[in-house]
């Protein structure tokens, strides 16, 4: 369970300060997957960084499983926009990076195999396709066996086939592992495909402009249904009316 109450984040101080998030409140139930969309530069990533404990709120409260977030939590994993792989580490070293940083000796081999990366453990990121890099980024987060998964545009800049693969993968993992997830995206179809609820944010500074219920979500086949198309059209309308 994630509770955000009146979150405000202001970058800088004094005259040059820039408000990124202004009084944002949201709630994500345990085992729920929600998506967050909004105009580009509206503060979506800032929200995610606060949830991950990387950024301190200027005001407001953020709680994960009832505990105030005061720093990085071991049960929260973050998937970065371009996967954030370290080019000087092999696939295995990248996948086990978060584990090692936390002093854990577990192996990520099983996770890598599950994500179809067996046999690539000793390769460097520069030797992988873009889609494989994203999967390594996902493996790094999964290896931690997190209860909360935060995803920052995990399919940005991918071709549409690879994008759908990664989206299906995330959906499958959510079913299998049962994490609480927040997915930040600027892709409307992705927001509808992966969000049980869709939080539409306003332009900067970010507030919640609207919450769209999306009960049909949860099956890979949802993509082909008329409800899906209708939800995407509705979302497009909401975002358009929101000055995006």
């Amino acid at each position, binding site marked *: 369970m994630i509770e955000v109450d009146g979150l405000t984040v202001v970058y800088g101080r004094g005259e040059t300060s820039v408000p990124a998030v202004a009084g944002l409140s949201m709630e994500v139930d345990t085992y729920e997957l929600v998506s967050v969309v909004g105009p580009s530069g509206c503060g979506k990533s800032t929200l995610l*960084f606060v949830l*991950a404990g*990387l950024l301190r709120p200027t005001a407001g409260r953020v709680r994960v499983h009832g505990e105030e977030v005061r*720093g*990085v939590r*071991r049960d929260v*994993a*973050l998937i*970065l*926009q*371009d996967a*954030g*792989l*370290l*080019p*000087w*580490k092999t696939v295995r070293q990248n996948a086990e*990076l*978060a584990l090692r*940083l*936390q002093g854990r000796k577990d192996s990520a081999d099983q996770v890598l195999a599950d994500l179809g990366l067996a046999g690539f453990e000793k*390769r*460097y*990121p*520069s*030797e992988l396709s873009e889609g494989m890099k994203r999967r390594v980024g996902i493996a*790094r987060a999964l290896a*931690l066996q997190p209860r909360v998964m935060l995803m920052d545009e995990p399919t940005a800049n991918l071709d549409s086939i690879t994008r759908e693969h990664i989206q299906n993968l995330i959906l499958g993992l959510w079913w299998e592992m049962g994490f609480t997830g927040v997915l930040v995206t600027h892709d409307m179809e992705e927001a509808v495909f992966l969000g049980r609820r869709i939080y539409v944010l306003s332009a900067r500074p970010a507030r919640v402009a609207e919450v769209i219920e999306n009960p049909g979500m949860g099956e890979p086949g949802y993509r082909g249904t008329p409800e899906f198309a209708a939800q995407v059209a509705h979302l497009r309308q909401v975002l358009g009316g929101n000055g995006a």
Partner: protein
Amino acid sequence: MTRTFRQALSYLLAVGVVIGLWWGVSWLLETIREREILPTPGVTFAAAVENIGTLASAFGTSALRFLIALAVAFLLGLPLGLAVGFERRLDQYLSPLIYLLYPMPPVALLLFLYLAFGLGEVVRLVVVVMALFFQVVVAAQGAAKYIVPSHVTAVRSAGATRWQIYRHVVLPATLPSVLTAARVSVGLGITMLYIAETKLGVLLGPGGGLGRFIEYYTFRGDISLAGVVGLALLGLLFYVVLELLERFLCRWKFVGARGGA
């Protein structure tokens, strides 16, 4: 295998060209001025063989001295440069200081260094370390300034400590540029070594080094020139060692889309 062979071949070819040029210049000078000015490669090689004992010991001394100086410059300069480049506040306060001190040639301070450290091994090392230290600091600082933010976020989001950020991101990210800078400054370092060994040493013998060797045989052109060749080979040795070190420590740079260059 073919590539290694071809590379070895190109090195051999380069050696051939250098010797050919050298021979041509000394022949030309001798023809124009009607006396021997630059000893030919053959004469120099003979002089080297004749004095191989002294020459080898001088080479060994200089090589060890340069190695120690390089190691000290790295041990002191790398942490400082990385911290100044990566920590914004340090950058603000220390960068002006570094840029003020960086262009100052230690040679100009020889007298003071000599007075401060005496006429011993220490002062010779200090001169070379001073020159290399700033090269390393400036290279490390420059590279650490442009670390990809998502790499830092990747380790921070897993709860990395400050030390772990340096260990897993800052150091490996900057190592290629720092090693390249070190390779480039081998030339400068060898020059400083020569100056330190000629200006700050008195006797030929153990601890003299190639600089002293060259200076001592000033009036025996062939032997002196053999010492110069030794100095050039010393530079080449460190250049190659640093390149191999980069290939070993930064293997990731040489794989993948960019191709093994």
